[in-house]
């Protein structure tokens, strides 16, 4: 039987050093075969025996995937550790009796190979061939069909946590809808919003709003725009003006929808000016160059920076500070928080940005979801506390009961 890509006899290739072959075989699977065809007459100098074949070859459907993959496993050849004899394994595949074709090469020491197959629910047969300078050793065959799984079992524990957290959020939203009162602690930055907008009215200067420099695929941007909904309502009521440069086209169009709706619900649809919300450039520093210039020229009395910010945070906040504006910032970018904390009057830290819209609107359903979030935090705190104690006891005593309990907690939080 002719197997493509495999030297038939252990002779000519032997003049090369074995590791070199191994390397060539991995990089160029068809290398040795073509070398054989082009240089037919070479004298054998060293006699190396062919490697023993791998045994117990098996093929199974690769677990936890969308199909299209089979897992071929084998027991290593007894020559596996001997680099002079065995250079690696070739995995060959056949479908419905067609000739076996090479689908991959595994290095010595490996005992499995994941093969992507074109069709689900079609049987493919495999054999594994060890090869080396002395020749090849061929295994028996095994076959299987690829299927997709209805659940990725490696992600069960994440699923459980998701059910707990999301379940708590939905449960509390329903409770809030049923009329349960929800408490929310003070968020200083949001208490200051009214005062900040009022000041802009008094001074007759505009309010500057920046919803970060990221696109709509960032949840922080969405949060920034949700808060804009509440703040622009206030701006409409106070009859002051809003300037909102955007660094993304999609953010501009969403912001326009949001603000228009706020002006409408504040009863002043005629005061809405679309031109106040405009696109500048997607380029981070081009955007900053513009906003900086805008600040020193238009001197807004109040600046809001709510969304995802990067390096520009300090440029904006320092320039805002130099013109004496009230500045309220909020971001979930931990690296930029220190600068907002230092240069702005109020800063929403991390999660507070996501809580702010609930806080401003005091909408019961939104507050309910916050309560659900807190439940998630509670679960995390309890787990960390219990886990820490269990790990300590386990380390000090090694009691099997503790180990078992600890393993359970670890499984739950394994992120699988």
């Amino acid at each position, binding site marked *: 039987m002719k197997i493509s890509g495999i030297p038939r006899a252990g002779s000519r290739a032997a003049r090369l050093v074995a590791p070199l072959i191994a390397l060539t075989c991995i*990089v160029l*699977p068809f290398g040795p075969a073509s070398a054989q065809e082009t240089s037919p007459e070479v004298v054998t100098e060293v006699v190396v025996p062919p490697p023993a074949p791998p045994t117990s070859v098996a093929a199974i459907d690769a677990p936890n995937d969308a199909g299209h993959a089979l897992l071929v496993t084998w027991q290593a050849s007894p020559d596996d550790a001997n680099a002079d004899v065995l250079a690696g394994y070739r995995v060959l595949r056949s479908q419905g009796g067609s000739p076996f074709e090479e689908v991959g090469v595994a290095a010595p020491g490996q005992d499995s190979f994941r093969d992507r197959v074109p069709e689900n629910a079609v049987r493919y047969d495999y054999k594994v061939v060890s090869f080396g300078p002395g020749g090849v050793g061929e295994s028996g065959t095994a076959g299987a069909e690829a299927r997709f799984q209805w659940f990725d079992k490696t992600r069960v524990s994440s699923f459980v946590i998701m059910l707990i957290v999301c379940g708590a959020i939905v449960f509390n939203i329903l409770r809030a809808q049923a009329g349960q009162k929800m408490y929310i602690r003070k968020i200083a930055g949001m208490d200051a919003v009214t005062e900040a907008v009022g000041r802009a009215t008094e001074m007759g200067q505009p309010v500057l709003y920046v919803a970060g420099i990221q696109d709509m695929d960032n949840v922080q941007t969405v949060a920034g725009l949700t808060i804009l909904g509440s703040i622009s309502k206030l701006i409409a009521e106070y009859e002051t003006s809003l300037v909102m440069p955007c660094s993304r086209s999609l953010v501009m169009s969403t912001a326009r929808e949001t603000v228009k709706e706020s002006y409408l619900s504040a009863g002043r649809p005629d005061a809405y000016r679309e031109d106040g919300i405009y696109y500048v450039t997607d380029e981070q*520093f081009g955007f900053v160059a513009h906003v900086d210039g805008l600040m020193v020229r238009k001197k807004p009395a109040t600046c809001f920076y709510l969304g995802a910010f990067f*390096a520009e945070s300090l440029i904006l906040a320092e320039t805002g500070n130099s013109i004496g504006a009230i500045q309220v910032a909020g971001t979930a970018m931990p*690296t930029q928080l220190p600068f907002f904390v230092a240069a702005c009057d109020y800063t929403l830290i991390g999660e507070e940005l996501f809580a702010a819209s609930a806080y401003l609107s005091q909408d019961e359903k939104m507050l309910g979801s916050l309560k659900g979030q807190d439940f998630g935090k509670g679960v995390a705190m309890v787990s960390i506390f219990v886990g820490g104690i269990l790990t300590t006891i386990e380390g000090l005593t090694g009691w099997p009961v503790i180990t078992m309990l600890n393993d359970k907690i670890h499984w739950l939080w394994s992120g699988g």
Partner: protein
Amino acid sequence: MGFLEKLGRLDRRWIFLLIAVSVTIPLMLQRPAPVKPSPIVRNLYTAIDALPPGSKLLLSLDYGPSTVPENDPMAHAIARHALSKDLKLYVMTIWATGPPLISNLFETVIIPGFPNKTYGEDYLNLGYKVGNQGLIQSLTSDFRNQYTQDVGWGDIAARPVGQIPMMSTIRTIKDFDFIAGIGSGQPGLKEWVQFAGDPTGTPVGGGVTAVEAPLLYPYYPTQLVGLLGGLAGAAEYEALLVENHPEFGEAAQVALIRMFPQTVAHLVIVSFVLLGNISYFAQRGRRRK
């Protein structure tokens, strides 16, 4: 008004001037700073050093021209290290600003430093693809669907991946032995950890600007093998590299030389913070009287 009070209301333009001076003068001296590598940098160095020859290293340059002074020395040091260990180097970027950085890497590091390495066999330019973290995510299931061809380099034209020797064994991101991300924001190294390292188990390491560094510490050492934080991290890596490969010489000491003005500027800023506090407490003390 006393001196301390005047100090408290110092026009910030004086501060600007002092910073400019304190960086310019030491920079003109061109001296490498003495640097001692920290464990988190050493870890990355050892991990790459331990890869057997022929291992596949994916190097992603996810930054723009603005952070070149910090990020370039990292990328260049890792590329130098990888090629000196005979690793296969796959260079890509998920930032639109990345392609010129790749050309620059080839021009300034690989061509002069490794004349016997061949494009397509030892190193490869996969170029830029749009998609941010979504791109990384899709690479975990199929690499070739996204990268149907390379980008080529200089006079070397792009080829379909089927014709590139280095690509024959690459099916998904799992086929790489190491992912090195050099980043300065989002998407960057964090996304490589979240979307490639965590789901597939491929080791991820790399470098980020000093700003990003604290953000990535939580991933170290389980999800992230090692980390170069800013210019100091790059300088530490260079120190290790030069220590083990003295033949690289001055070309591999860019970050070490920049660390000198860096240090002077740090000291100037530290004294600003101190002065600011002294004048604050002095004024408060006076008001109390």
